[in-house]
């Protein structure tokens, strides 16, 4: 489970933790328009994605479970296209709502 070695990914900026996962992890800061390779298909990242964020491995529909580490980490709330960032705007917890700060109250930039 969480402690196993991640599988090698053809694109070193992305990490697929488990074969059954439907998201890949971002290992290097990506800017909108950067081209990455997901499952051997070149795709332009539609928005900035900082280290630690997740990209959809395929198109996802509302109600789909997102799998990371081979485990469900929540449910999709909005249609997500392959390569798009999967985060609080399109994924929600199946346990407790996620609390975030917005707008001018952000205290750190996520991408540099």
């Amino acid at each position, binding site marked *: 489970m969480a*402690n196993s070695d991640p599988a090698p990914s053809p694109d070193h900026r992305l990490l697929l933790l488990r074969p059954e996962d439907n998201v890949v992890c971002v290992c290097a800061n990506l800017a909108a328009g950067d081209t990455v390779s997901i499952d051997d298909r070149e795709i332009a990242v539609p928005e900035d994605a900082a280290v630690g964020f997740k990209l959809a491995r395929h198109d996802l529909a509302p109600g789909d479970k997102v799998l990371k580490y081979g485990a469900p980490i929540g449910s999709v709330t909005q249609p997500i296209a392959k390569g798009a960032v999967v985060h609080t705007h399109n994924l929600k917890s199946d346990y407790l709502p996620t609390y975030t700060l917005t707008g001018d109250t952000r205290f750190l930039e996520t991408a540099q």
Partner: protein
Amino acid sequence: MITGYPRADGRKGIRNVILVAYLVECAHHVAREIVWPYRDQEVQLIGFPGCFPNAYAAKMMQRLTTHPNVGGVLLLSLGCEGFDKYSLRKAIKESGRPVETLVIQASGGTRKTMEAGRAWVERTRKLLDEQERVPMDLDELVVGTICGGSDGTNGLTANPAIGRAFDLMTERDVACIFEETGELIGCEQHMATRAATPDLAREIVASVAKAAKYYAVLGHGSFAPGNADGGLTTLEEKSMGAYAKSGASDIVGLIKPGDIPPSGGLYLLDVVPDGDVRFGFPNISDNAEIAELIACGSHIILFATGRGSVVGSAISPVIKVCANPVTYRKLEEDMDVDAGAILEGRRTLDQVGQEIFDLTQTVASGTATKSEALGHAEFILTYKSFEPIGPSCLPRAS
């Protein structure tokens, strides 16, 4: 081989700290003023702010003031607070440590109490500085782990690297403690498969169910806005990453704050109070969890952070394992281990795990961590209530 200071109860400490402990917020200022001139000489401030008595706080203060890293204790009382200063002083005295209680209302007020306190600290520091370190075996060491200021990299680098270090330690009979059942929501069934006995497996599943219920009542999980800024989306995603800190060994016991592991091996610390929801959030910030790990005897804390927490702790050194390579470059002066190198292909998980294991032994023998050298000695303790652990929670004596 590591070294430490022998204590009367048979344990050994890796530091020789003098604690100045206030027993109510009203004594906090005087206690802090006593510590200030000696803050670079292993003299540290802890305390409990409340005036109402609380069994959990009393147990925590007893365990912390008799922790093996502590050599002597000065208690600061206003005089009228609810804290049982008599029992605490007795426990410290019986542990063989120098102890003094100063009661501000009986000592002539702020200035005179400060003078008396500083004089005691100076005498006691000289006394403790004569003690010499002796050889200490790895199986005498207790190591706790926590993650804080987490982001999406924690579960990829620092946390699994700490898991590797924990595996190396449990093989050598180090007692290793991981915690925050509220950050393990979603991992309970997998943890159950690692429990040493079926009864312990049931206790572990029940402890996480308790945490889920507790946080549901409060309406808020253990998830800060900075976690989301760093790419973590949900509580269960954070849980999966947090869980990686526990490594792959069997879980031999389930303990609660202030319970000291009776043997080496991997323990889960249940930090969520028992019974109805009272007193608010279980741990209001990372240092509340660190204080609980230390009250369970942890000599050293391995702290995984992606966003970049800078905290240390009173009593036990904190080793900062930085998960995110971007954060490491920004906050290098605060970080002990660059686990983000794994993401950039410069290191492997096994290499970083080994580095954490090696550094733990160096720090145990006296080398200061980054946060120690920068003077970090944070501490917080608030109200909670617990029932004692059940009979299946500890490994049977062999």
